[in-house]
């Protein structure tokens, strides 16, 4: 789980943040509600976790609330990895 959180966080830092913002995001930091990731960009984040963990997340479960923190994203991934 920790490794998964690190992977997801690293991807978010690389793709959605600039260099000097790295220390501002943790596993619990709001992503969607803070505006770091907008609703359109959430599609590419969803695609990343699907590719990375070979899962398919149903649209009805990939809500802004479910994608709002690294922790909640990883909970969703784990649910679908069985």
């Amino acid at each position, binding site marked *: 789980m920790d490794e998964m959180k690190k992977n997801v966080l690293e991807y978010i830092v690389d793709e959605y943040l600039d260099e000097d913002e790295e220390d501002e995001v943790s596993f619990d930091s709001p992503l969607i509600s803070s*505006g770091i990731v907008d609703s*359109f960009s959430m599609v590419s984040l969803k695609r990343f976790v699907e*590719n990375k963990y070979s899962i398919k997340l149903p649209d009805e479960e990939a809500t802004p609330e479910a994608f709002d923190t690294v922790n909640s994203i990883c909970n969703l991934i784990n649910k679908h990895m069985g």
Partner: protein
Amino acid sequence: MSNIESYEKVSKDFNWDIARDVLNWKDGELLNIGAICSDRICARGDADKTALIWEGFGDRKAEYTFNDLRIFSNGFAQFLKEQGIEPGDRVCIFMDKIPSLYFSFLGILKLGAIAQPLFSAFGDESLEVRLASANTKAILTTRKHVRKVRKIKDKLPDLKNIIVVEGDPAKLKEGEVFFDVLSAPKIEKFDVFESDSESPSVLHYTSGTTGQPKGALHVHSSIWGQALTTSWVLDLKDDDVYWCTADPGWVTGTSYGIIGPWALGTTQCVLDSGFTSSRWYQFIQDNKISVWYSAPTAIRALMKDGNELVGEFDLSSLRHLASVGEPLNAEAVIWSGEVFNGLQFHDTFWQTETGAMMITNFPGMEIRPGSMGMPFPGISATVLDLESHEPVTEPGKVGLIAFRPGWPSMFRRYWKQPDVYRSKFVGATDDAMPDELRMNPDLWYVSGDRASIDKDGYYWFVGRDDDVINTGGHLVGPFEIESALVEHEAIAEAAAIGKPDEVNMEVVKAFVTLKPGYEPSDDLELDIMNFIRKRLSPLAMPQEIEYMDKLPKTRSGKIVRRYLKAIEWGEDVGDISSLSDD
């Protein structure tokens, strides 16, 4: 009683001078939008009335009175003047929905310069194209977004002033200036530019099928249309608390998120944080919002989150709802009536070029769910036959939505593109100049959208008449996306279309062929998506990419988007005799 009282009655005796009555306008007053929305409201005795209730992410809150609006817009006007900005210069506003966006917009107009608001999620390439087109002289931005400006500034010789209005001044780089209006000396008096009805005010960029985005130029007299439609369609009254959810990077956010409501002296709310349904409902509850102007995409997203969530909040302050951006589907209208105490969203139709609402559902009129409503009084509208370009007389027959030119908020030209402006008018002569076109009552301005009119005069939206993609209420040009796609190292050729989407109406889908040495893969698809997201914007990012061996083209080599779109939408592909056999 609604402000409009009777649509039939006001339509019969309509003239645009009614807007002056609504604003209690006196002859000789200064027609400057920046001053009308701040100084004038103070002068009428409402200096201490709340103008802006602002909330950001993380419990950040602030309230500003109309006197604050006056002083802080003066502050921006004075600062820009000291930086050498002159009337007519283009000043870009490139920031999130923070209070300084609103103050600076009014300040730019007070100075007589032209406000060029751009959506802060634009990537560096989208920004560059628009700044280069407008020969923009100054940009107001924040620490978060100045990085994109740094990447492109060397390619913009006209961009002389990079002004950062928020963040840590110690992190600025050479050539950048810091200005925090809240901590700067208060400017009690500023000599407002004496604009007249045709003085340029706002330059909004909008996408077309071909070529790069076009700058639609508006003038200070647009306020007549914006104020009157705000009064009659949004029905704002003195004690209302109003929320327009649009970003001022787009025209709704300026016409109805700044100009219309503040010209009337209305208290308005701004929420600058990411979208979640519960946050939005909380915002309405906490601020006792009474009039809410939003977008179908947001309404459908709220619908998806269900009725139960609505019930967790006290939304009884709401009394009037309206919507704009793309057609509002009947289900969303009916749903809103069910969950918001019988209030249905009133759909409105207009566009960047029209500057104000054109076809709308009015308070008090029977809403036919799924219909755009009827033309605003004083607007001569029709649908033109697709072939003959003559007005359609048969109810239900689809044609091009068109308007007789001459309404006050009509755009005056496309920036440096007179031929493109001319092409929007049916019946224009080849040498007609913009001023002749917009005043010629024999022409039709063609919106680019298709609709039908029923026997009772209600308009029903059908779709775009071109390849422009309407995603989440924003127009995205396929050419801009395709141009960026072929800059990706793996892509040889590309086509972009809109594909149907339950929430956003359309999302971008790209069809690509790959260069030798590259193979289709999920990782490549994600890489391409992020490439476009960062260069253009999240809106332009393809949500699906289809790899093809070759793209459908005409014999002259032009990619045929129409063919791809017809297949994607499950429609008849039509005449394909001109397609190349290669």
